[in-house]
């Protein structure tokens, strides 16, 4: 892409009539036969192109990658069928990745970009929460786990590490006020990087608590995305109160660390961290974070994470895993919303597309979407001093009831050693697990 005509150095000479110019379309449409592809064929072709392209990118062969991207862009479209959309977002991520190898160009290209309005992003995320049952099921399950753990407690302090949806806490407040021994004194500390979100949440929750006559305090904590270091002092955990920590799609961001450009493991593999049996890179960040949380002795910690391994060292691993994962999510979108739906497109772009871009295009500390599977999280959490709390039958019951309300029957929910995995068809999407302080 950035090469001048024919000066590609990748292959030797004969090649180069490959310059951009030669891509001029033939008299008829550039790829006439491509237009005649049936959707399935096109889909398969797109998959192959994506694989090819990403391996080219991983290999550093950018000219050929460019060719492949060109092909993809001729076939992909964010308004097309599922595979076309997936290809669109993945190819955008690959292009972003390529662009990053020219830092100057990358910065210049993004310098005048106006970030999306906060309100729009918030609204899109809310739609994602409402329209797809995944987050709702997770919230129902985690609320139930909290209510059960807090039985008998008079003072409850809840820390939400990635507070986004007040709906979940509103439901929790209602659950708590309905318990037989009456509501506890409730304190909610919400951590987020957007002030608007925190304000909304403050209003919504305070209103709810007032209406139900529950003693309630709300503590917003604004963190800077860049810094990302949570000051535990600010949480103001008091002795004697029962602490619940909720982490929704947040824990994996702590896995972001400096690793080699090609995704090699961070240097200190044997840096005396105890949880070494993990095959994943040592990540001092997440260990110290988990230790800090352990230090607060939470009565319960509910962790919701993506159930897929997008933290592979190599781009191809991540690409392959994430292709399957996001294919399932895109299929789910396809079954839920019509193709013309603007909300669906926004969700796909702002929620899924951003995740994909981060997984594929970024490395090192910038790559924050480091999803890992539940078993790895279990190892980490157990290594940090937490014991698993099996989720109750009643929680599963509520979750299943909720799923029944969604007309689409592709959603499955299953129990995995006391934790819950929410699937689309056979593909696990999110996992919810509960932990408590041990020792």
């Amino acid at each position, binding site marked *: 892409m950035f090469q001048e005509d024919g000066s590609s150095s990748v*292959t030797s000479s004969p090649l180069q009539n490959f310059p951009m110019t030669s891509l001029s379309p033939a008299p008829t449409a550039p790829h006439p036969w491509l237009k005649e*592809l049936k959707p399935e064929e096109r889909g398969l072709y797109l998959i192959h192109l994506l694989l090819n392209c990403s*391996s080219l990118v991983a290999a550093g062969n950018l000219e050929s990658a460019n060719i492949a991207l060109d*092909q993809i862009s001729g076939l992909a479209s964010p308004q097309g069928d599922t595979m076309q959309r997936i290809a669109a977002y993945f190819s955008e991520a690959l292009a972003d990745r390529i662009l990053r190898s020219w830092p100057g160009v990358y910065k210049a290209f993004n310098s005048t970009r106006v970030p999306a309005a906060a309100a729009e992003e918030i609204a899109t995320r809310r739609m994602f929460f409402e329209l797809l049952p995944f987050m709702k099921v997770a919230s129902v399950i985690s609320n139930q786990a909290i209510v059960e753990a807090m039985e008998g407690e008079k003072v409850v302090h809840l820390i939400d590490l990635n507070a986004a949806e007040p709906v979940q806490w509103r439901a929790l407040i209602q659950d708590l006020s309905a318990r037989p021994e009456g509501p506890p004194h409730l304190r909610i500390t919400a951590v987020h990087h957007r002030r608007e979100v925190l304000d909304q949440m403050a209003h919504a929750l305070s209103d709810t608590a007032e209406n139900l006559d529950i003693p309630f305090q709300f503590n917003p904590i604004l963190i800077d995305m860049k810094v990302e270091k949570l000051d535990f002092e600010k949480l103001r955990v008091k002795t004697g109160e029962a602490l619940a920590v909720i982490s929704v799609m947040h824990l994996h961001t702590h896995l972001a660390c400096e690793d080699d450009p090609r995704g090699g493991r961070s240097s200190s593999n044997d840096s005396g961290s105890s949880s070494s049996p993990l095959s994943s890179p040592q990540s001092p960040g997440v260990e110290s974070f988990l230790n800090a949380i352990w230090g607060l002795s939470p009565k319960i910690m509910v962790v919701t994470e993506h159930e897929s391994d997008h933290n592979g060292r190599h781009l191809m691993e991540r690409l392959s895993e994430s292709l399957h994962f996001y294919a*399932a999510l895109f299929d789910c979108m396809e079954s839920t919303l019509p193709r013309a739906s603007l909300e669906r497109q926004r969700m796909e772009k702002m929620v899924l597309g951003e995740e994909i871009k981060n997984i594929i295009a970024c490395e090192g500390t910038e790559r924050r979407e480091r999803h890992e599977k539940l078993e790895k999280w279990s190892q980490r959490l157990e290594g940090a001093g937490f014991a698993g709390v099996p989720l109750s039958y009643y929680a599963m019951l509520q979750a299943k009831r909720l799923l029944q309300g969604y007309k689409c029957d592709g959603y499955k929910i299953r129990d995995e050693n006391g934790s819950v995995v929410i699937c689309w068809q056979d593909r696990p999407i999110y996992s919810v697990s509960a932990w408590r302080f041990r020792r």
Partner: protein
Amino acid sequence: MAASSSSSAFLSLRDENEQQQQIPPPSAPPPTNKRRRNQAGNPNPDAEVIALSPKTLMATNRFVCEVCNKGFQREQNLQLHRRGHNLPWKLRQKSTKEVKRKVYLCPEPSCVHHDPSRALGDLTGIKKHYSRKHGEKKYKCEKCSKKYAVNSDWKAHSKTCGTREYRCDCGTLFSRRDSFITHRAFCDALAQESARNLNPPSIGSHLLGLSQQDKMNQGALSSHDILRLGRPSPRYETLVSPGGFSPSPRPSFVHPNHDHDHQNQPSHNSMFPNKSSLQGLMHLPQLHMNNTSPTSSTGLFNLSFFPGNTNNNATSTMEGGLHHSTAGEDSTLFSSGNLMSIAIPSLYSTSHGMQSPSGGAQMSATALLQKAAQMGSNTSNNGGASSSLLKSFGKSPDHHSFGDGSIYNGGGNHMQELMNSIAAAGVGPGAASMFEQAEYRGFHGGNSNGLSSLEQAGRLTRDFLGVGEIVRSVREQQQSGMDHLGKQTQPFGEGSFH
């Protein structure tokens, strides 16, 4: 419970002798007389209204000695205590004035009994009321963990708790009928749901079935299994069944030895030297593809996506190439690829009970991915490394198969070749030439990366070329002058994939 009746008002509406002594002077005869009970909370209007603060109300020591301010729970205890003060005799006695009816108010402002007209007549009653409604529930039943504020309530409940139980099939116990019924409604639904097998078929599985057959033919099952990604898909078998499927490799199917520059393919149709073989192929999937039957057969064979659907053109070419490319090993798959115009449709429609693809005319992305993975596994039969990309694609990521950098090494990957050819075709003359060059280079064995496979697959490649030629010719027809059906292997292979 008796206590609950704070209504136990001895207030009577008797208006016998009203004494104008205090504010509302009730004059009730001594308690021994019969009293009519008022409705709870509707006190005698003549009664003295007493409003106590919550603290006083709940105070355990209501009787306080005037002399030393010591508090007692019972009046008799207080009197006993007062005797000890050596009070003058007459003070020891209670005052003999008429006992006024007293009514009490609930100190909670939002409570209905806060209003004097709804005062409660009994002190014990008001205390219990206040605890129950506005107090903290400190007593808990062990069996059902129901909580109570008033001791006597709690004791009464414990007597009856657990004496009558309902049990649902799932094992949950209920003491109340209504909650039991509600639960059962949902519980049944759950039981039914779990009983149903909700594994919707997807085309992918069908396709997989086809490929499966290949595998079976060749015994190269490993990658296939991996590629399966854990999908049970017993359906494979359905596809596999078409015995005709494995028309066994037809080596000669595609023009085996075309020169790379073979350009004289006047019409695709003539491209298939062995029409018979083609027909054989056609047998295989006698599934007629009815236009949009999505069942995705397209995906089945690596290159089904060749634009072949529409009769002529590439499809046929693809087909030829496909067949051959797999060197007859998994050719069935490829062959099934039936890109042939005629055959293709049949392929596409899955006759044998293939289930409709998820999504009607559109295959779901997940199914497509599985198909692709399958295809990858099939191609791998050939000389190894080549289809490693696709193979790895299907495998679990932990496999780290990419590490060996062999992904693009061999050109032997039919898929790749096909892909390449497609890509080449699509890219344009210039690109095509590039690819072609690459391919040639590969052919001529210059490739450092495991070209051996390429060599070994040379024959295959050649076949591809045949295919390619077909494609080429097709393209030529469309865009004259393009006769490169390149394989991109070279450029791809060059990168160090690590």
